[in-house]
């Protein structure tokens, strides 16, 4: 770079004091996120100032009201046309308010609300010294097995911090699929990840496993974040901008004004390819696609089950939303480069998830591998690069998240002396002992397997149809084959529950409070409704299927 170029950089940077405008923020359009962030901050204050006895109820109240209000805001925005005709970019180009964003935000908020009910469940664990407790540790800072832990349990402490943590994570998730520049994307990624790392470590039972899961998740997540950040840096070097639309223009070669300081590196394809690869890699880590899936089984198994359910559902929605936007808004000009790679990733993800799941003996690990296989199915829809590809992915995510959260809620019910009985052998004969719980779980498993008349089938059909229309017929065939493989292990669990003799020392099914019942009930209702009459929701997803640039 020449000396004058550097100098001009210097002077233009110092000069435009008069040009600094006050940022214009569309508070109304950002209301869902702002409500959640506000409530999360309020939750921290509650934690500091409200007496311990009433914290649980205060936190519950704040969180439920915030999630409901935010969802109402999303619906209001969508009804106002922000999903379709009035879709635009808010907050100085940082956040997009469009169909996919609102649809995914609505899904995340509902999932979080249902997830919150499982967080707040206090009837499953036996009372500790006369205090009702939830599935979270008494005091996170106490060393497992130490005297201070015993003291905390005896004092009846509960970690009500989980509620604000949940809200912070939700705030990050709301921004993640809506982010319209790379920095916002990264901030959202961190805001959603950090609370989740913490939440994973907070299990009341099997604390060491839970902490191990959290550390694994944190270390690998930090790696992935670093990759993402590096990718962002390279993309900035390539395009001279953080904004999605500008990068897309540079990729397409239609960019108007070139920053002279960056003219040398701008348009350097090496930067673009490496940068895009690293960025997408970070997102694939979050969705749990092979080969970035290694964390999934350990974290799903170790984390407190309500957290696992919430994480499996909502994180996947947010991460796929972000991935869609990156691939469809920023990198459509590069699709001939990324499509073959994503083909390979999708195929490997579907097959590996389905095959490895067969050998699992722990229900939570099994569901983890199943979630990997489902990530592969969703990727098949992502690869379509058609409008129906977008809407099919949106629909699949909505359908899948409720099945997931319901399934994990059922897992919290089956317990023995050591807490949740997650080993599959203990589920033998559950259908005899509590037919209703087993039947409900069977419904969820059938939906995972994609049996017709469940939401899983409608979703699977939608993504495979989109993939076939997008010219990815071989992917459909692989998808169908891995569905058949996956069906095997879902069916195996059903066999175990219904056709095996109950063990004498087997687990009992705890009777939950209305909170968990609601969570499971909503899961079943959504599964059946989306399976039998999906038309309205398909239309909704179809209308929402256009990104703004």
């Amino acid at each position, binding site marked *: 770079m020449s000396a004058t170029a550097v100098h001009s950089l210097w002077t233009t940077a110092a000069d435009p004091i008069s040009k600094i405008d006050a940022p214009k923020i569309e508070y109304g359009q950002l209301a869902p996120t702002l409500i959640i962030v506000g409530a999360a901050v309020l939750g921290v204050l509650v934690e500091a100032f409200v007496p311990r006895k009433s914290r649980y109820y205060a936190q519950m109240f704040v969180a439920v009201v915030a999630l409901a209000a935010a969802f109402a805001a999303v619906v209001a925005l969508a009804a106002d046309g922000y999903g379709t005709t009035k879709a635009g970019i808010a907050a100085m180009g940082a956040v997009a308010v469009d169909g996919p964003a609102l649809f995914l935000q609505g899904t995340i908020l509902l999932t979080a609300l249902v997830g919150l009910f499982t967080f707040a469940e206090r009837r499953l664990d036996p009372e500790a010294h006369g205090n009702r407790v939830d599935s979270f540790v008494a005091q996170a800072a106490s060393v497992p097995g130490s005297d201070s832990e015993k003291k905390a349990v005896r004092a009846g402490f509960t970690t009500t911090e989980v509620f604000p943590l949940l809200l912070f994570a939700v705030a990050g998730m709301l921004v993640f699929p809506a982010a319209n520049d790379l920095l916002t994307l990264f901030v959202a990624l961190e805001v959603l990840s950090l609370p989740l790392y913490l939440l994973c470590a907070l299990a009341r039972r099997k604390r060491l496993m839970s902490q191990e899961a959290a550390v694994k998740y944190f270390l690998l997540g930090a790696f992935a974040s670093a990759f993402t950040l590096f990718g962002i840096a390279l993309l900035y070097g390539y395009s001279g901008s953080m904004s999605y639309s500008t990068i897309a223009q540079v990729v397409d070669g239609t960019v108007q004004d070139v920053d002279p300081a960056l003219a040398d590196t701008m348009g350097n394809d090496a930067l673009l390819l490496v940068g895009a690869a690293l960025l997408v890699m970070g997102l694939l880590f979050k969705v749990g696609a092979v080969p970035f899936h290694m964390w999934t089984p350990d974290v799903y198994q170790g984390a407190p089950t309500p957290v696992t359910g919430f994480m499996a559902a909502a994180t996947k929605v947010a991460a796929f939303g972000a991935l869609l936007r990156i691939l469809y808004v920023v990198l459509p000009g590069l699709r001939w480069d990324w499509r073959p790679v994503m083909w390979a990733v999708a195929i490997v993800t579907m097959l590996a998830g389905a095959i490895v799941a067969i050998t699992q003996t722990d229900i939570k690990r099994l569901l983890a591998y199943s979630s990997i296989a489902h990530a592969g199915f969703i990727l098949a829809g992502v690869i379509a690069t058609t409008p129906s590809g977008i809407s099919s992915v949106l629909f699949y995510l909505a359908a899948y998240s409720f099945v997931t959260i319901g399934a994990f809620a059922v897992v919290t019910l089956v317990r023995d002396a050591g807490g949740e009985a997650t080993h599959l052998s203990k589920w033998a004969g559950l259908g005899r002992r509590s037919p209703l719980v087993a039947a409900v779980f069977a419904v969820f498993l059938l939906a995972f397997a994609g049996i*017709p008349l469940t939401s899983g089938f409608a979703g699977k*059909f*939608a993504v495979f149809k989109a993939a*076939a229309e997008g010219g990815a017929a071989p992917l459909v065939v692989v998808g169908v084959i891995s*569905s058949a493989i996956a069906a095997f292990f879902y069916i195996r669990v059903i066999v175990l529950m219904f056709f095996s003799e109950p063990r004498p020392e087997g687990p009992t099914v705890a009777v939950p409070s209305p909170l968990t019942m609601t969570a499971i009930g909503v899961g079943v209702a959504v599964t059946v409704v989306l399976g039998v009459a999906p038309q309205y929701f398909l239309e909704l997803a179809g209308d929402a299927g256009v990104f703004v640039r």
Partner: protein
Amino acid sequence: MSFPLLTATAVLPAIGAIATAAVPAAKRTAAKWLALLFSLATLASAIAVLVRFDPDGDRYQLTESHAWIADFGVRYELGVDGIAVALIALTALLIPFIVLAGWNDADPLETGSKRWRPTQGFFALILAVEAMVILSFEATDVFLFYIFFEAMLIPMYFLIGGFGDRAHEHGEEKAATQRSYAAVKFLLYNLAGGLIMLAAVIGLYVVAGNFSLTEIAEARADGSLDMATNTERWLFLGFFFAFAVKAPLWPLHTWLPNAMQESTAPVAVLITAVVDKVGTFAMLRFCLGLFPEASTWATPAILVLAVISIIYGALLAVGQRDIKRLIAYASISHFGFIVMGIFAMTSQGQSGATLYMVNHGISTAVLMLIAGFLISRRGSRLIADFGGVQKVAPVLAGTFLIGGLATLSLPGLAPFVSEFLVLVGTFTRYPVIGVIATFGIVLAALYTLVLYQRTMTGPVKPEVSAMPDLRVREIAVVAPLVVLLVFLGVYPKPVTDVVNPAVEHTMSDVQKKDPQPEVEAAK
């Protein structure tokens, strides 16, 4: 708008299923009567369909069409042709007998949990299967058909895995293991077939843009839809694979013997006489109707598979030691005949195949249900454990013999007519195949008569000496079916009248005419 008779015929058993499942645990008998009532109501509704159906009218009648999932191009479209009417009638006819035959099969042995209600579940599942089978016969929308084709696996799976024979030669624990093995095998085979078909269904949508049988047929006729030869063949294979698993055709048949052996006799009848018919029916309606050229292309290979099924099934039946397994292999042989008749591409062959589906349903029901009564009396399924039953229980033995003779297609009983038609229809076009298939009949005589001889004749074994003859309930199950076998054997016209026009339509789908008899000119 006219009364939606087809929907009603399918909804009745569905309501019955829900109502039966909701009966409290203590009111077992009420659940049974409720199930019987709903199955009879369904039969009445099916008879109404039969009466309202005009054989010489439009191809699809009593049609209903409603919007359902517009995004997938799916409509709720029902309509029946003669083939569907015959099979709906068969289904609705058999279910009351299945319910009656299985009256006590699902009573709980010991009282478990208060909420454990196996009896209610058993009958509810049977009715659920009936509803889905009827809907899949009625659907003229490929997607709608697919949904019920797949969904019926789930209740069927629970029927196989959850309820088995009371007496089992290896004890209850082994029995449970074998049962769940059979159920899983059933489900995985059929699910794999169904998922392959799903890929083809999606492919069909990409090519045709909708799922309506009539619209696709019209579009093909006026040339607005032109399928590439290769595409059509792949799609055909996808569909055919699923139906061949269901039917079942060699070499995809291995789930059937396990499933029939391990389930109770009424459920075994449900599998082979009702559910499997959906496979052969769908070959006629969807494989030939949607992909006529590919069907013609695949005919030689399919005929060879069918003949292998006929001979292989019969040979294995001869060698069985287990009564139910024997009947299962006999059924595989018979399904070979049905498939052969369908793909012979002659009107005799296809009429014969349709008639065969009906007759095989009835004759297998007789044979299997009586075998079930026999097995529950002795507590064993092994042929070697029986002997001389005809001296102790003459009515049982006599009806069993009639069922057996029907299975080997004795003239005068219904299956003879259909088997004859199928063989004649095949012979006019494929003489070699027809001749080889005839050996299947010889083998059928061997396995049925040997079965009868070993179990019913000879000295009375001490274990069977106290065996009671058929009870009133059991006679009520068997007698009407036997009467029907004789009636349709002497006078098959009612069925052929309904079926023939539909077969003509199918023949015109594949643009085939019957080969004209060639007489060498006299010199």
